[in-house]
């Protein structure tokens, strides 16, 4: 396969058309897993055949919150924890948009946890990719609502004693119709999962377990990003359809991956249209697909 070359003669990165190459190098550390997710998302988006001009990406704050900033899509880098409600407004304001939220564990289920469960409950049409590195990276390795029991963080220097969330279970029990988990090692399976989720509707949730060598691994003496990859290789167990109650991630214990939920149910907008058509008949005017903008 020949790759298009840029002016320097160096082959262009295959995902370059979807990236803001002028912003590279990115802010992420060597060995970080976030770039892998960006690559898988870009590949899945390209393969999906979706109109990329109508695809938006929304991030919150933190290391993973920087993803939107590198995507050559309509891209929104919002406030801490509020990527999901921001994306909700975007989707409802122009229903034809395909909106993806990519952000971190602290952002989406720490400060943004309330929005996460309610968007899943309402089945808002969003693809949510949560990059879980078990820690607050950008601020210096503080404890997260995902930090495994016993793992060290800069605010739990003797090990975490708080029960973490099991994210697929949180999403599934809140009503998400599509729930999967992969690690940064599973790049093909993760890409397929994103492709599949892009074909589905409603609140689709994919957790990606990612290494944070600078903080999580260093504080817990887990070695480099590569050591984490080796750990995923040896300890990830693929179990599709597993009961989401059994998916807790322990400290340095096996990580169950796979697709756990794939049960479509009507989205917020489908229910809204159906409900008002039933109640109001011809009086009901749905929000136009291109949005409720009055044109100049």
């Amino acid at each position: 396969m020949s790759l298009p070359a840029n002016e320097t003669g160096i082959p262009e990165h295959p995902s370059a058309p979807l990236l803001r190459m002028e912003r590279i190098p990115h802010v992420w550390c060597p060995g970080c897993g976030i770039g892998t997710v960006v690559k898988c998302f870009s590949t899945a988006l390209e393969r999906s055949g979706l109109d990329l001009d109508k695809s938006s990406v929304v991030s919150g704050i933190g290391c993973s919150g920087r993803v939107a900033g590198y995507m050559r899509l309509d891209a929104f880098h919002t406030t801490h924890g509020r990527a999901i409600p921001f994306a909700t407004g975007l989707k409802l304001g122009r229903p034809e948009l395909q909106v993806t939220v990519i952000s971190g564990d602290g952002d989406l289920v720490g400060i943004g946890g309330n929005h996460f469960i309610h968007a899943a409950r309402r089945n808002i049409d969003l693809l949510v990719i949560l990059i879980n590195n078990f820690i607050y990276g950008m601020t210096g390795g503080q404890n997260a609502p995902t930090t495994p029991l016993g793992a060290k963080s800069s605010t739990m220097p003797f090990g975490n004693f708080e029960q973490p969330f099991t994210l697929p279970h949180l999403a599934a029990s809140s009503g998400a119709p599509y729930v999967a988990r992969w690690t940064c090692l599973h790049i093909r399976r993760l890409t397929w999962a994103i492709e599949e989720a892009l074909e589905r509707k409603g609140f689709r949730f994919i957790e990606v377990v990612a290494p944070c060598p600078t903080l999580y691994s260093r504080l817990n003496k887990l070695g480099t990003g590569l050591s984490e990859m080796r750990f995923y290789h040896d300890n990830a167990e693929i179990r599709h359809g597993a009961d989401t109650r059994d998916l807790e991630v322990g400290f340095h214990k096996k990580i169950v991956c796979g697709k756990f939920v794939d049960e479509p149910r009507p989205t917020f907008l489908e229910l809204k249209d159906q409900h008002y058509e039933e109640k109001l008949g011809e009086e009901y005017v749905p929000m136009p697909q291109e949005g409720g903008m009055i044109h100049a």
Partner: protein
Amino acid sequence: MRADPAGVLTGAHFLDGDFASGEGAMAAGCRFVAGYPITPSTEVVERIAHRFPSMGGTFIQMEDELASMAAVVGASWTGTKSMTVTSGPGFSLMMENIGLAAMMETPCVVVNVQRGGPSTGLPTMVGQADVMQARWGSHGDYEVIALCPQSPQEAFDLTIDAFNLSEVYRVPVLLMMDECVGHMTEKVVIPEADGIEVVPRQLTRKSPAEYLPYEVNGDPVSEFARAGDGYRFHTTGLTHDERGYPVMSSECQETCVRRLLDKILDHVDEIVRFEEEGLEEAEVVVVAFGITARVARMAIEMVRREGVKVGFLRLITLWPFPEKEIRRLAHRVQGFVVPEINYGQMVLEVERCAGGRAAAVSVPHGGGSVHDPTVIARAIREAAK
């Protein structure tokens, strides 16, 4: 352009300020509202929830006010005019994403029907103590526009103005109603759609290749592209350059934040609105807003019968503040009397602008009811001595 008739309930109605504000929003072309229930503002969204299904609007009751404001900012980036509605405690939560709207230069409207505070305060009773929060509530430097209606009719009219100003200056515009006006029922005349001037969202005509979301172009604001039209733009709450890309430097901070200030400060004369009466002969000027303006009028009539030369300045824009007018008057009057349902907020601004040339007398009221007009009258008499 003229209003879309689908949102205009033409006729003479008997409405409270909350309902009237909701009607104003729909007439202005608002088609997305996200909100969380809170007294005394909830009737605004109840009205909208009832009427939106027949005009292509979407109302969503969010999980809290943080989410409501975030959704409003998101929706506005699709070009759909967007609003949220709240009262004090919710207004506090909204400050986070009001700051985001200011930083991203997102047109939107926030209605705050003020009750007594702080904290849960007086949920069902009047206050006007959020007026400084409207100006300074979110962190960092930014400018907003805040309007204040004194009647249900004005709640309708000013909600339309709020949407129009938000489009022209790409800022969140705050409609600072108070519980009395929100729950007061009066005649509200809604004109034909043809008689309502609406500022539409102006979309850029540039090609995606030449478009910069925050281009400095000599106009107060940059050109707007909405999500989904192929511009593939980037916007952020971080300090950003013309491309909307984060740049962490004091130089970029100066350019980025200075724009947020100057787009309002350079157009204060076009934005500021007030109503004046009897100022030319006045020795004392009463400055008031919202429901307190109506109470102050009674006090003014009382003291005028006694021969006191008193003028009246009613603030319609709280922010920007009519600085020039206060300065001009301060040269010739003895003092200003400022009744407000708080312990002295806007009086600080009057005092600042008077610059020691005329007294600024506060007539405070903690909230829960309106002023006794005789208390205001007494303050006017004192100031006139």
